[in-house]
Each structure stands twice: as structure tokens, then as C-alpha cells.
């Protein structure tokens, strides 16, 4: 019944052309979410009747198995990265490799224990229910206490972020200083040059201009590339050409392949000042203290680069992500268990 009601509410907001995402953040959805969490807790408890100790131990072992897997990937990747740099970083690579191996040991030991303890499909089914409940609890904690702030920070190695200000005026002290030292953009292809002409205020046909070395050529005309300039309010470098009709030559960058920001955080560890440097990319956020910074986009204007970040503090994130992993693993084991033993 609760799942059916959830479907109706989801459908109400997810209709392709008349989508109303407000439905999802409304009171009805919150109430239904709470009901689903309670039902999942009860369902898991009831399914594991007589095997509750086994279920709790099994889920703890499963958690440590996944932790081991996560350690293997995280520190293994760092070991490979440091080994690739070589030189003095080899010591770091060996250290990271040892931690990755510890992850393998964790995985092997707790994976075996989990395999021995969770020996009935119904336990995995109960695990799915509790994982959904854990995800729901995390989502509720985030809905109540999450702080999410879009931040624009110039990549000038001078401007430091020390606090975040919400739209409603609330201020959050970060507890550290954050600065962007450098920002790099990679493109799939070279920049293109287009000549636009305007007659009596109306735009005429655009013409592609060819670049040969340091010069731009169009028919018998040519201009040096260095003559293009940036100006406030103009998104791309340009060159105004004298004469009638008015013409403007615009440089457009190629398709963006990747971009990354060099982030420096000035923080402290037990009262001692510490500096953390990291490369912030779209898929690899930077975390410091309770805050996580994701790279959303960037803006380049008049030779100045501004980096658009999203700062987020989410107390329920860990529970929600653990719940998701639990759902994935427990569903797979339960669904793929031999059918005759599932009933």
C-alpha cells in the first residue's frame, strides 16, 4: 500500500511535460517516506524472526567487507598514482599499497564471516528492508539539516573563502580558509573564429575565418590573432573591425573536454596549522572538515576566471550512501539465490 502510494506521488510529480518537483518535497511525501521507513524496519524485523542476531552480525560483517573493498579501491588508486610520479613518492606508494592490502584482508575475513552468517535468503531480504530504512533515515537527516550553498570563487590565488552565506542571510563559518590557485580547461579541438557583420543593426551571415599560424585569413583580408581582446561583458575574445557594415571577429573555444581547479585549504590539526592541496574535478569533490566542495562549472570573462562550486554539509549522507550500497548488495544476493530456497 505504501509503495503504491509512493508510486502515485512519484507519478504526480514525474509527468514528463507538467513535472512538479515540489510534490516530492511536500509534506505528503515526507509522511509517506516516514511510513516506508517504519514499515521497512518492521518488515526486516519480522522476516528475520528467530535469526535476528544472525542478521545484525551479518550486516555488520557486510559493512566491514564493503569498507575493505572501498579501502582497496581508494588506496590502491593512490598507490598507483604515487608510483606513477616516482622518485620520493615511492615511499608514499608503498604506504598506500599496504593500506590497500589491509583492505583486501578486511574483505577476505569479513566477507567469509558474512557468507557463513547470512546463510539463508530471507536474511538478505530482511537486509534489503533495513538498508531501505537506513537510506530513508539518511535522506530525512539531510532534508532537515543539509546545508547546500553555491559558491563563486575567482581563480586568482588571492581570494579566500572563509564563510558561506545562504540566500536567507544565514552565515556558516567554514572553520578553514579555501583558495583556488589555478584553473585549467582542456578542449577536444582548437578554437574557431567567426566573422559577424551587422547592417542597419541587423545581423548578416556569419563567415568562418581560417587560422594559419598567428594570422587569421578571410579572402584577401587578414588579422593577427593577438589583435583579439577581452572586455567585461563579452564572453569571448573579439576584434571590432572598422568600416561599413560593422563587423566583429569572435574567437569561440572548442568543445570542453575537462576542467580542473587547484584548491588549497588552510586548516589545522590539533591546533597546528596544516595546508591541504588538491585537484578539484567534476567527478572528484574536495572534502575538508564537515564540508564537501563539488566543481559545478566555470566562467571566463575578460581574462578573469571564476570557478562555480557547490559547498555541502550533509549529516545524513553517510547513512544514505551506506543504505544504497546495502540495497544493491542485498537485492542481488536475494534475487539471484536459488529459487527453491527463496520462498
Amino acid at each position, binding site marked *: 500500500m505504501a509503495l503504491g502510494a509512493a*508510486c502515485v506521488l512519484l507519478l504526480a*510529480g514525474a509527468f*514528463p511535460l507538467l*513535472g512538479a518537483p515540489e510534490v516530492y518535497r511536500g509534506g505528503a511525501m515526507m509522511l509517506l517516506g516516514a511510513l516506508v521507513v517504519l514499515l521497512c524496519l518492521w518488515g526486516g524485523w519480522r522476516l528475520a524472526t528467530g535469526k535476528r542476531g544472525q542478521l545484525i552480525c551479518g550486516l555488520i560483517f557486510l559493512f566491514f567487507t564493503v569498507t575493505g573493498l572501498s579501502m582497496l579501491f581508494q588506496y590502491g588508486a593512490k598507490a598507483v598514482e604515487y608510483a606513477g610520479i616516482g622518485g620520493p613518492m615511492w615511499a608514499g606508494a608503498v604506504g598506500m599499497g599496504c593500506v590497500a592490502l589491509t583492505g583486501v584482508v578486511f574483505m577476505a575475513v569479513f566477507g567469509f564471516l558474512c557468507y557463513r552468517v547470512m546463510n539463508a535468503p530471507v536474511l538478505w531480504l530482511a537486509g534489503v528492508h533495513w538498508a531501505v530504512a537506513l537510506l530513508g533515515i539518511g*535522506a530525512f537527516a539531510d532534508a532537515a539539516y543539509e546545508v547546500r550553498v553555491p559558491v563563486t570563487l575567482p581563480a586568482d590565488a588571492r581570494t579566500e573563502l572563509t564563510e558561506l552565506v545562504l540566500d536567507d542571510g544565514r552565515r556558516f563559518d567554514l572553520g578553514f580558509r579555501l583558495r583556488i590557485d589555478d584553473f585549467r580547461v582542456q578542449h577536444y579541438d582548437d578554437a574557431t573564429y567567426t566573422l559577424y557583420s551587422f547592417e542597419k543593426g541587423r545581423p548578416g551571415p556569419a563567415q568562418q575565418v581560417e587560422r594559419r599560424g598567428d594570422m587569421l585569413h578571410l579572402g584577401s583580408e587578414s588579422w593577427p590573432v593577438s589583435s583579439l581582446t577581452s572586455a567585461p561583458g563579452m564572453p569571448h575574445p573579439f576584434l571590432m573591425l572598422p568600416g561599413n557594415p560593422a563587423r566583429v571577429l569572435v574567437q569561440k573555444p572548442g*568543445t*570542453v573536454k575537462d*576542467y580542473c581547479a587547484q584548491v588549497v585549504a588552510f586548516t589545522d590539526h590539533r591546533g597546528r596549522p596544516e595546508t591541504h592541496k588538491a585537484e578539484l574535478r567534476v567527478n572528484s569533490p574536495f572534502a575538508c572538515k564537515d564540508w564537501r566542495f563539488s566543481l559545478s562549472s566555470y566562467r571566463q570573462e575578460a581574462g578573469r576566471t571564476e570557478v562555480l562550486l557547490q559547498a555541502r554539509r550533509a549529516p545524513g*549522507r553517510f547513512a544514505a550512501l551506506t543504505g544504497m550500497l546495502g540495497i544493491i548488495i542485498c537485492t542481488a544476493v536475494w*534475487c539471484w539465490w536459488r529459487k527453491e530456497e527463496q520462498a
Partner: protein
Amino acid sequence: MITLVYTLTLFTLLLCLGSVFAAVLKRPADCRRAFDAAWVGALLLFVADWVLAQAPPFGNMRHVLAFFPLVMVPAAYYLRRFRGLELTAWLAGASAIALIGALCMPLQAGWRQMPALQSPWFVPHVTAYVISYGLMTVAAMLTLASFRRESLLDAAGDVVRLSLPFMTFGLWSGALWADAAWGGYWAWDIKEAWSLLTWCIYLIYLHVERYPAFAGWRRPLLLLGFAAVVVTFLVVNLLPRIESMHSYAQ
């Protein structure tokens, strides 16, 4: 190269149709052989697409549809070997539908992965969804056929059980990926909402499947679930007026 891609698509499609035809003629060995040959064709097509795109070929709808037979053949083997279900012709039929769709799509050879898609989650997320949607298509076909042959409804349930973990992985791995890329694991984007809705419908199916009192609900739920799959996979992506964070998949 473009001609080669279309030729391979057509070749694989003909083999899938051949597999279905062999099953109609009650020649199961030929049915399996033709579908195995279709897998080879699909593999060559996948390689050709990868070479053209210079990246894992999941950049557009044609890429994804052409990938279907590649995962359907192992699924047919798994169902036959471990579940005792001979559904090769049904999976070949579902693959043929996907390949007909792929033939109707424009060939966008070059594909430039935007920064958000350059993640280790990208390939497993898409692959899991392709497997899941392919199997759910088979489940829907079996459900329709069960109006004439009741036993096929149980087979549809088995296919759902095989498919649901992939759908679950696709859904929640997407959330884990979004947490890294967009700074939040859930944004109530329209594609996310429809994916969750689809998942919930199949969860309801698994809940009612256990109780004989709800036996009459099984067919409507399976068909409703498939309708939600179609909306999630096709309608949300192909309707141009929808603004979605997943719009790069259009």
C-alpha cells in the same frame, strides 16, 4: 566505417530474426546457434562503435540500443543453464526490436564525453540499465504471451528476479555517481523520478507475487512496470521540451 556500422547492425538484426524464426520452426539448436552468431555480430558492432566514438559507445540512444544483443545472449545462457528456462527466442526477439530501433536512429559517429560523464561509474551504470531494460522487455513480452499460455507468467517473474538487481544497481549507482559529480545523491530530476517510480512498481510486483490472493495483480503490474521503463528510457529522453540533468543522453 559508417557503412560497416549499418551493415553490422543489419547483419546482427537478421541473425536475431533468424533465431526467432528457428524457434517458430521448433528447431531449438538452430535458434541458439543463430543467437550466438548474433552475439559475435553485436560484439563487432560494439568495437566499431567504440573506434568511431573513441570512447565507450554509450553516447546516444543508437549506441545503447545496439548494445542490447551483446548482453542478451549471456542472459539467455544464464537463464538456460542456472534457471532451467529456455527463453532464447524471446531474448532474440527483444534484441531484434532494439536493433530495429538502432537502425532508425541517426548515426552520430563522433562523441565527445562531457566532464561529468568521465567517471568510473559511467560504464557500469549504463551497462546495468541496458541489461535490466532488455530483460524487462522480455518479461513484458512473456507477460503478454501468458494470456495464451499461463506458465509463461512464472517465467516472466523469473526474468524480473534476474533483472531487478541490475535495475537496482543502475538506480543507486547513479545516485552514488551524482553525489560525486553534482554534489548531491538525489536531485528529483525527472529521469531520476521516473527511474525510482519504475523500481517501485517492480518492488510492488515482488511483494504481491508471494501471495496467491494477489495473483490477478501480477500481469497488470508487469505491464505497468514495462510502461514505466519505456517512459524512463525513451519518452523522457526523446521529448525535446523536457529539461533534465540527464539531457546529454538525448
